[in-house]
């Protein structure tokens, strides 16, 4: 029972962690509550759905979908948010604009693909893996692996490559980075592309696991964002472990009460953390507000 709960936490948490890390990464160079994070993932999932419908091989489908979500992410940043920021838009204004973009996106997806649930395929039900005491679907194992690989990769990328150093420099102070001659826009665009790929992966995996619907974007966004914030938005590891913690808290809550209270539990935890410990679980001091 306890082991089941932990495995399930790992599965759910890994899904949240992918979005949480993407949110954190994007937020580090483009600091506002970006409401379109979930939409980028959903786009990746739906493109994969459409391409699979045309009968393309899986590896091509994955590559094209990831390119599409990455491009979408980059276009939003370069086409809308960066120009707005350049004209002095506050984080609040940017957030509202991204809310508008999300609303448009959701309706366009609705018009093209309809409102019903679509799943990418049946590997979730047909491929079960026996890990001794329980069976878990292959796709859920893939979610766990993907999330850990992305986590390790990003840790390496941010701390051991030149681009990673530049990203952290912009995160520390965009003005200073600009003064010493870093091309901030180029760095932001790189991060947007990278975030798009991570989110696209998440979208495809979610498409295989639970299925896609137009309104999925807000769900993905909020869980990822809550994970990132309760872990301490200022670090990548905070986002990763915060997402895991959120999944654990939700699962314990669901085990104690009922599954329909999952969202309520997540948001209560979110507000409790922002009120009582705004710097997150893993941060010592420094208030982000």
């Amino acid at each position, binding site marked *: 029972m306890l082991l089941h709960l932990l495995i399930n936490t790992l599965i759910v948490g890994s899904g949240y962690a992918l979005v949480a890390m993407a949110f954190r990464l994007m937020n580090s160079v483009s600091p*506002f*509550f970006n409401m379109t994070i979930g939409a980028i993932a959903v786009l990746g999932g739906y493109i994969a759905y459409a391409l699979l419908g045309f009968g393309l091989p899986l590896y091509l489908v994955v590559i094209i979908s990831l390119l599409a979500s990455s491009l979408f992410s980059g276009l939003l940043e370069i086409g*809308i948010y960066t120009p*707005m920021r350049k004209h002095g*838009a*506050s*984080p*609040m*204004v*940017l*957030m*509202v*604009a991204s*809310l*508008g*973009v*999300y*609303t*448009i*996106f*959701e*309706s*366009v997806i*609705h*018009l093209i693909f309809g409102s019903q649930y679509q799943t990418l395929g049946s590997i979730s039900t047909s491929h079960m893996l026996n890990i001794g005491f329980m069976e878990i679907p292959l796709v859920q194992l893939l979610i766990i692996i993907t999330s850990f690989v992305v986590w390790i990769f990003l840790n390496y990328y941010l701390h051991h490559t030149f681009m990673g150093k530049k990203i952290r420099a912009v995160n520390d102070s965009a003005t200073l980075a600009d003064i010493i001659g870093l091309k901030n826009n180029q760095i932001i665009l790189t991060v947007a592309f990278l975030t798009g790929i991570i989110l696209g992966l998440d979208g495809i995996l979610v498409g295989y696991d639970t299925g896609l619907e137009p309104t999925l974007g*807000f769900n993905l966004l*909020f869980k990822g*964002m809550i994970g990132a914030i309760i872990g301490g938005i200022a670090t990548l590891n905070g986002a990763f472990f915060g997402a895991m913690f959120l999944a654990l808290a939700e699962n314990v809550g669901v085990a104690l009460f*009922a599954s*329909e*209270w999952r*969202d*309520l539990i997540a*948001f*209560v935890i*979110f*507000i409790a953390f*922002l*009120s009582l410990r705004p710097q997150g679980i893993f941060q010592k001091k420094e208030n982000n*507000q």
Partner: protein
Amino acid sequence: MEYLINLAILFSIYSMLALSLNMVIGMSGLVSLAQAAFYGIGAYATAIGMTSLGLGFFTTILLGIVINVAIAFVVGKILARFQYDYYAIVSAGLSVIVFSILLNWKKVTNGALGIYGIGKPVVAGYAFYSNSAFLGLALLFTAAIFALYVWIDRSSFGRVLKALREDERLTHVMGYKTKYYKSVIFVLSAALSGIAGAFFASYIAFIDPTTFQLKEGIFLFTIIIVGGLSSAVGSIVGALILISLPEVLRFVGLPYEIAAQLQQIIYGALLVLMMIFKPQGFFGKFRM
């Protein structure tokens, strides 16, 4: 004619909501996305009060106000710790929590099935069954809320709110208890949106939780962004524009499903365009 009256009733309900939301967002600079929650609580107070408890319409308005004041007082205390975009995100979270309770507390709210058969207001034996009489009553309340808005806007209380909107720390330093002012306007606004909820429940006669989602809060926000932040007239104009927009689309002859999505696309585009070109709205005075 009946069609126009129907539109006018919706317009007046949304005007009440827009005015009360503008007190919080426009006048005081507190970007709350939780207004749909208080709207919903007001509607449910009337629905439950009139069906299960057998109360009259005006008693249930009072009931809704009392519940909203109590909840808004607590919620306002939580929100008072935040500013700007954090305020917006936390209030959005609170909206999701209230929606989740309306949806899942089945014993009281009947869950996703909603509540049927909500009655009409009765004054001294006269029941407002005809839509035109109902419209009259709704407009009366809208006018009262409009007057209240203008009165607060011109009062010293409103001036303090506008001062703290521009610079909360400075206002605090000058000796005003900004937390108290923020709390009072938030509670007042919640109470007023409860009234709008009561009218909605009584007019439609059936409510379910989906009407009071975060999306509705964002829609109300769009109304006052388009109309104008911190402007009573702007609130009304915004409601008028966004309530008549779907009807225009319907007249063009689009199928319902496409029109509904197109409407959302236009709302979204309005938000983006307003943010890029005129973040304070057409008639607005406050720039976020």
